[in-house]
């Protein structure tokens, strides 16, 4: 029913619904009416039959009490008038059948037993028992049986009436519904037509006409409103569609261009990757099959067969075992996610039999979960660089050796100079002693002894009386005095000589001690070092009349290569002395200062000599630069190098020519080892 109705026009739906509703309602009413009528008529029948029974019973009561069957039967014959009564029977109080009656033509032999008052409808008859009473006393029972003809007649009659009413009503209902459905269906179908038109013509300017203010009216309002909006949107849409199309066009061309550019870029990239001299290997773990991309340089560097992709173990096989161990450590860190990249120097033993040095750099790109997605490894052939490095190292070593030797020579020059100075003193002392001895009055003593020997006989008289003899004693006294002075002088000179020889011994021993400890790190007092350097130049400082001014703010102890530092300081002291000397001024002062911070020790050597012109301040540390006659321009250069090697620095300051210069040697407390190998990363 619903399915049938669903696709019917509303017009038909309304008619059908109205008809069905009214028909069902009417049918129910008719059925109820017929049923009620039947029910009522049954009641009426019972009522009628009861009245008849009452009457017959009353009329037969006396016959029953006075046992007059004939009279009773006579009375009952009156039932003939009531054609619907089929049979009747009177029972005595004890239930015995007293008298009977049957409709003419009926032949009945059995009777129901007497029962209490009540009516029973059977399919073909109505049976009714009714008590017969006289003066309130039950004296018997009457049974009446009625046919149901009247019931049937009435049922048929009323059913027919109902059908007629139903038919008429339905007809009227149909006519009314057909007329009245328009009230609802026409606005709706009108709306539907408008909607169809809008859909078919895409014309949003059409409007539905409103008939009333009911739900359909509101629906039409809503529809029109919607149309207005759609119209607006449609216009906007058209505009934006045009705009969009234009933009799509633009984007498409831009995209096409970009695509072309991308392809070009990709080709460029490919060209670059293939052209670069270092090996690039790209591994993509994202797809199920690991993808690898290797550029030609890889085969050039490793010497592997370029006609096929090398297996991992082939690459491992040509790696040096030590390098492989380190590489595996890095690889382990990479796998565990501790690092994302590493680089190392390693060697390959090429199948051709030679060894290549390479820098292997690997970088991985991880996904959000830390899984390695891509890996790029590069190999750069550094064999040439390695060789150059080795050569450079060798050169450096030679240079250092040279510089050291040069330094040593400088020191040796200083030492010899000092020794020479001292030897001068030794010479002077020994000449003095030898002159003293040569000019000694000791031969005069021998002359006195000869005189005394000549006057041995009369020595006493000679000494007291002789003119000459009398002179001997004062002469001897004078001689003794002179000899004593001579003795003192000689002893003094010999003492000087001994001291000078001692000095030479010291100088030699010191030189020996520096020479021996070369390259050995030891802990020394900075003050001692500075003092040693001064002592090494003591002779020339004294000779050139340079005053020393010591400003030791700290007396730190430092661990370093003693001889290197000493060479620097000796060199600085000597330069200061020369600077002072050249200035020709009388108040030549050399100041040594030691200062310390938490990390560094600074040794400052200042002079008030000729100073350094500004333009030379940067050049003085260059190899071979000198302003001194006879200088070889090596001292400051090697000093600066040595300071750097020790982890410190050597700097120069000067206010200008004639204003003196200050050199500062800064050294770290911690010994620094610049040659300690560091792993390239």
């Amino acid at each position, binding site marked *: 029913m619903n399915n049938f109705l669903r696709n019917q026009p509303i017009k038909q739906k309304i008619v059908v619904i109205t008809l069905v509703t009214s028909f069902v309602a009417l049918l129910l009413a008719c059925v109820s009416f017929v049923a009620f009528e039947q029910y009522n008529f049954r009641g009426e029948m019972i009522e009628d039959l009861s009245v008849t029974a009452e009457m017959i019973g009353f*009329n037969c*009561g*006396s*016959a029953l*009490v*006075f*046992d*007059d069957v004939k*009279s009773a039967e006579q009375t009952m014959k009156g039932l003939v008038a009531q054609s619907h009564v089929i049979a009747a029977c009177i029972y005595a109080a004890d239930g015995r059948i007293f008298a009977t009656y049957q409709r003419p033509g009926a032949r009945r032999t059995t009777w129901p037993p007497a029962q209490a008052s009540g009516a029973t409808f059977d399919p073909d008859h109505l049976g009714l028992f009714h008590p017969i009473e*006289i*003066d*309130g*006393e039950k004296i018997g029972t009457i049974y009446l049986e009625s046919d149901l003809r009247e019931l049937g007649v009435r049922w048929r009659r009323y059913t027919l009436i109902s059908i007629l009413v139903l038919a008429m009503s339905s007809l009227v209902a149909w006519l009314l519904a057909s007329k009245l459905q328009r009230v609802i269906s026409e606005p709706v179908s009108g709306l539907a037509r408008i909607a169809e038109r809008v859909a078919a013509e895409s014309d949003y300017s059409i409007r539905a006409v409103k008939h009333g203010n009911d739900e359909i009216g509101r629906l039409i309002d809503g529809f029109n409103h919607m149309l207005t909006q759609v119209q607006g949107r449609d216009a906007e849409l058209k505009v934006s569609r045009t705009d969009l199309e234009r933009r799509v066009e633009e984007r498409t061309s831009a995209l096409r261009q970009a695509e072309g550019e991308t392809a070009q870029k990709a080709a460029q990239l490919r060209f670059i990757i293939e052209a670069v001299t270092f090996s690039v290997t790209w591994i993509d773990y994202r797809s199920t099959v690991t993808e690898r991309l290797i550029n030609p340089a890889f085969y050039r560097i490793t010497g592997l067969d370029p006609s096929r992709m090398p297996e991992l173990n082939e690459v491992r096989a040509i790696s040096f075992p030590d390098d492989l161990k380190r590489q595996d450590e890095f690889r382990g860190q990479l796998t565990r996610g501790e690092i994302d990249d590493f680089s190392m120097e390693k060697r390959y033993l090429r199948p051709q039999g030679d060894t290549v040095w390479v820098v292997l750099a690997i970088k991985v790109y991880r996904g959000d979960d830390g899984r390695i997605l891509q890996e790029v490894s590069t190999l750069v052939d550094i064999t040439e660089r390695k060789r150059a490095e080795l050569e450079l190292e060798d050169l450096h070593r030679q240079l250092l050796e040279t510089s050291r030797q040069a330094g040593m020579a400088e020191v040796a020059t200083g030492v010899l100079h000092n020794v020479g100075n001292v030897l001068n003193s030794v010479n002077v002392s020994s000449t003095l002693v030898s002159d003293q001895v040569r000019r000694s009055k000791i031969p005069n003593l021998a002359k006195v002894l000869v005189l005394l020997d000549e006057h041995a006989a009369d020595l006493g008289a000679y000494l007291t009386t002789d003119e000459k003899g009398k002179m001997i004693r004062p002469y001897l006294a004078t001689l003794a005095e002179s000899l004593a002075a001579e003795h003192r002088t000689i002893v003094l000179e010999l003492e000087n000589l001994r001291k000078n020889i001692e000095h030479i011994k010291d100088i030699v021993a010191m030189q020996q001690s520096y020479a021996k400890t070369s390259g050995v790190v030891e802990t020394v007092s900075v003050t001692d070092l500075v003092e040693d350097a001064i002592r090494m130049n003591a002779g020339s400082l004294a000779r050139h009349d340079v005053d020393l001014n010591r400003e030791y703010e700290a007396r730190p102890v430092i661990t370093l290569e003693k001889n290197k530092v000493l060479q620097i300081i000796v060199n600085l002291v000597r330069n200061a002395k020369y600077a002072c000397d050249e200035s020709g001024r009388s108040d030549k002062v050399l100041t040594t200062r030691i200062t310390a911070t938490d990390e560094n020790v600074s040794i400052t050597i200042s002079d008030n000599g000729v100073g350094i012109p500004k333009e030379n301040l940067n050049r003085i540390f260059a190899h071979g630069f000198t302003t001194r006659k006879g200088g070889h321009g090596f001292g400051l250069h090697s000093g600066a190098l040595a300071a750097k090697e020790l982890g410190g620095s050597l700097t120069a300051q000067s206010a200008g020519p004639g204003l003196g210069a200050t050199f500062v040697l800064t050294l770290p407390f911690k010994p620094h080892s610049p040659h300690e190998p560091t792993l390239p990363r």
Partner: protein
Amino acid sequence: MPILPKLSWDRPCIAHARIIGTCAAALIWAVASTSGAESTATKEYRVKAAFLYNFTKFVEFPPDHFGASSRPITIGIMGHDPFGAELQKTILGRKVDGRDVAARVVTSPAELADVDVLFFPAGEERRFDELRPQLSGAAILTVGESSSFAAHGGAITFLLEGDKVRFSIDLGASAAARLKLSAQLLKLATSVRAASATRP
């Protein structure tokens, strides 16, 4: 037994059943007829007792008959009592028009004071004349059982038609006693003597 013809099993059964059925029927008839014979007289008076009682229902006494009294309707039996216990048994516990029903033997006219129905057994009809002064004008339904009773002026007279008890009515007598007899009763009477005709 060996000389008897050999019979099928069905036959002796049917034969036996017939014999038994006949015997039973005979026995029932004998018993019934014996008891009927013995109780004919008793039955007649039992019926008459019932009729006497039932007459009270079909008789309308004058309005002032009972007055405010709630006394029972009394059936008087003139002289001797032919009912034995039957009448008492019949009226026991019955009510007519809300009144109890009583029965007693009446021997003297003085005892008629509250009698409503007076039965004259056979042979007592002559007493009717004796009682006439008391009866005239009194609302007493007189019932008799001899054929001459009506002639004496009784209202209802029993008679026998075969073994059935019937009655005749003298409307003049009943009217004289200011009694109205129900049409129901009248239609059952074998004969009804109209009042005008009977009036002497």
